[in-house]
């Protein structure tokens, strides 16, 4: 057994202060930037209307989560991105409702 210790000095929270650029979102998902453009086109991730160029796009944690989920649906279930968008919306609604029920003490985690 060998081991090494490294202290990370570059921990940032993905969010408004440290967003991901389009190429970084693509890289995090093992994809090309064209795939991120498709995500925007089908509405899986949303960018402000005024930012038409992918270079201007900024993504937060929720976008990364949806992009990763979409990638998995594509790969493991062979679904198209339009169908993935619908599945993700339904999934989001289920999670929101379950979280609300749990918060009210009406559902076990």
């Amino acid at each position, binding site marked *: *057994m*060998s*081991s*090494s*210790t*490294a*202290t*990370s000095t*570059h*921990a*940032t*929270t*993905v*969010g*408004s202060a*440290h967003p991901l650029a389009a190429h970084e979102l693509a*890289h*995090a*998902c*093992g*994809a090309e930037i064209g795939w991120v453009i498709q995500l925007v086109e089908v509405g899986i991730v949303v960018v402000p209307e005024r930012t038409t160029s992918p270079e201007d796009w900024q993504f937060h*944690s*929720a976008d*990364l*989560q949806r*992009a*990763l*989920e979409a*990638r*998995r649906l*594509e*790969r*493991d*279930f062979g679904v198209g991105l339009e169908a993935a968008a619908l599945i993700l919306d339904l*999934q989001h609604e*289920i*999670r929101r409702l*379950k*979280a*609300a029920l*749990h*918060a*009210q*003490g009406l559902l076990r*985690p």
Partner: protein
Amino acid sequence: MDFKDYYKTLGIERTAPEEEVRKAYRKLARKYHPDVSKEPDAQARMRDINEANDVLRDKEKRAAYDALADRVAQGYGAGEGGRGNYQPPPGWDKGFEFHRGPSQGPADHAEFSEFFSSVFGKGEHRGAQNRQYRARGEDHHAAIEISIEDAIKGVEREIVLRSLEVDAQGQPAFVNRTLSVKIPAGVHPGQFIRLAGQGMPGHGGEPAGDLFLEVRMAPHKLYRVDGRDLYMTLPVTPTEAALGAQVHVPTPAGHVVEVTVPPNARSGLKLRLKERGFPGKTPGHLYLLLDIALPPADSEAARQAYVQLAQAAPFDPRRHLTTSGV
């Protein structure tokens, strides 16, 4: 750490063709997906199913896994414990769940076991190093579970990435890499923490990828999470609910605040402590759900007090009930 039978996990034979792997995975994923499954162990089963699928759907990984399974069947373990018995040091993965990164194309966001990361983690690592092209290293994904208090205040945690490497003698050996991670104050569930350069190494002199840690909240005995808001059940006595009261409530930031319970409060009434949830640009709130707790009538004096209350304040909580249907 036990050897994992991925074929058994998916309920297929070792000779199953690729299409059968895919069908088995999809069928089980629908049954155990935690968002829809009623099975009590759905989350753990889904993790196992994802892990098995990740290996068996990939020709290269499947071949490596089959070879490993043969070695184990012959009595040779791939781990240091030998004979298929993997014995990692205790607590190495405390507070940390391993995820596979999006290597070789599509990303993967499922959880994976110690067994998987030990056997396949470094295999991907070496494969990446051997490729003859220039490219930034792949990003890695993991999840880290922290308490609500730590999320609000920030915390420093050590995580251990464990992998199997072949040493100079050609023997497999475990290698631990410890990272000290400073979780910033104010993170909330679902956020990702990015550790620059802690993903897979780059190719041809290009920089390493990043490690993304998804923040998850550990269950809490007092607070329940809904997005950036927190909920807490606040027990009050019937007297406090009827007459109103000032009660003390602990907040997740470690403070105790005084809260006014209004007179004639009903059970289930929701009180909001503004911006006492998860902090941030749009801070969450702490909601208190009133729960009227009855004093037990376990003494003669208490029973008499209930009788006197009934006489002093006649009250029929069923007066609105009717059998007429209107």
